[in-house]
């Protein structure tokens, strides 16, 4: 299970309707279906991931998030997930708005570009950060909209989005008092639980 998924699943109530935007191989949805009796649907574009979803009994729709979510009705899900996909979207702000139209609540996770390692790469090496966790070079990365914890906080303020909870973890999904104290500096993955105001 991906590092952030452990925390996500605690925010999803049993029996709820969950839409996962960029559901990958469907492991999280399969777990939510099995353990939480969730009514789950995932969106995905990678053929291998889609096939894996089908093999695990996860309902998956081949749909490109960059082409919008207008086919989903307002309030049709309890929770809409966007895990580790925000930074790869053409229009992340629009999609976060759409999430909270379709779902009563939203969960967003993203790699925190405000992390000290990223800052250090730029400060000392003068190069765009590359790590095991974010292994792409700047010219071939799918991640075109990196942001920091403070950036996302600002987006929520400006978009009238209520932050129900915010946590940060490192790439091994461990939290600590220090990360809680300096999330934007120490956190590698930011995890937000959102609702409409």
């Amino acid at each position: 299970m991906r590092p952030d998924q452990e925390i996500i699943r605690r925010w999803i109530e049993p029996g709820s309707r969950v839409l996962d935007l960029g559901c990958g191989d469907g492991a999280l949805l399969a777990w939510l279906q099995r353990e939480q009796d969730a009514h789950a649907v995932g969106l995905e574009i990678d053929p291998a991931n889609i096939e894996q979803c089908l093999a695990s009994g996860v309902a998956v729709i081949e749909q490109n998030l960059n082409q919008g979510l207008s086919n989903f009705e307002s309030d049709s899900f309890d929770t809409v997930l966007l895990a580790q996909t925000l930074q790869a979207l053409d229009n992340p702000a629009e999609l976060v708005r759409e999430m909270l139209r379709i779902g009563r609540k939203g969960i967003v996770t993203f790699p925190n570009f405000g992390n000290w390692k990223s800052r250090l790469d730029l400060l000392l090496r003068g190069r765009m950060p590359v790590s095991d966790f974010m292994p792409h070079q700047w010219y071939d990365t799918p991640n075109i909209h990196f942001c920091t914890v403070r950036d996302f906080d600002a987006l929520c303020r400006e978009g009238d989005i209520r932050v129900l909870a915010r946590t940060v973890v490192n790439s091994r999904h461990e939290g600590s008092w220090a990360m809680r104290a300096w999330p934007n500096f120490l956190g590698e993955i930011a995890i937000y639980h959102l609702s409409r105001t």
Partner: protein
Amino acid sequence: MSKNDKSDSLGLVSPQRLAFDEPLALRSGKSLPAYELMVETYGELNPDRSNAILICHALSGDHHAAGYHSEDDRKPGWWDNCIGPGKAIDTNRFYVVCLNNLGGCGGSTGPVSINPETGKHYGPDFPIITVRDWVNSQLRLMDRLGIDKWVAVIGGSLGGMQVLRWAISYPERLHHAIAIAAAPKLSAQNIAFNEVARQSITKDPDFHDGRYLEHGVYPKQGLMLARMVGHITYLSDSSMRAKFGKALAGLEAEQGNFGRDLRSGSLSFGFNVDFEVESYLRYQGEQFSEKFDANTYLLMTKALDYFDPSVDYDGDLSLAFANSDCRFLLMSFSTDWRFPPDRSREVVNQLLRAGKRVSYLEIDADQGHDAFLLPIPRYIHALSAYLGNAHREICGHAS
């Protein structure tokens, strides 16, 4: 080589004819007092009768979906690419049922059958059958076979429409609805092509108002034309270029290949067959006209035109699915212009509106509408993965 030699082929199979005596009320208001269905089954029904799959055929299909009828058969059943031991619809796991639909010409009661009231062929007097009527007759077959609930009802094109009708009319009788290259209803363009086909048949001098069998003839030219027009809509521009442009087929690039290969190397400067594509269409039309009944063709195109399950719900298809608690898988093909991906997506969106669990794949394929019959790896693997999970969930791990 014997037909039994290939390990993933069903080898020789044989159909059975089942008689039904209870009258079947039809959507048109008419009724069939009694009828027969030609049925083929593959694989073994398990002891708790929980491993059955129904296959619904499309316009020109029949009960012979897989395997061979005799050692001399040149081709296997129409969906042999998908049905067989170890194939996507795995007959080692599933008991697969396929029938020739009512009104067909594969042996089930239809226009070529003898009307008991007159002692002659039904011909044009055979009542118009709709998708709903077919599903009602398939339900009777299901009860006859002692099956409570299908693991899945699967079909492509017009077969996919039967799948949707199953999910709407008898949701408690199937776990999974798998509709491939289907549409929620026909568009004006679809109906227009069907009308051209019907006009070709009914305007043939040998049609005799549909009573051609009594005259010892059949509207061969009309059927040929109908099939030629239909066949064009099953292919894509790119697949036709590839198929009829062998001179350039070796070149990967599609650019420059218009599929204009000549039949004899030079132009005839007459109205004869010049291009390969002309010859191919004539051959396809001719083959088809020799084995298919014209009245059945008319009836099938009408069943397509009339299909619209939203009519009972003020045009809101999502309401039609309100009670459909089965799970759905829809697939479409990128170059299909008969029922393009958008048509499948319309169904998917209505299912989402109805809050249903639906999966949808848009398969990249050059072959147009025909792709649903072909062994396209991503499509086959997806179907296989989906049914593998269905088998685990419904029939347990033992296979």
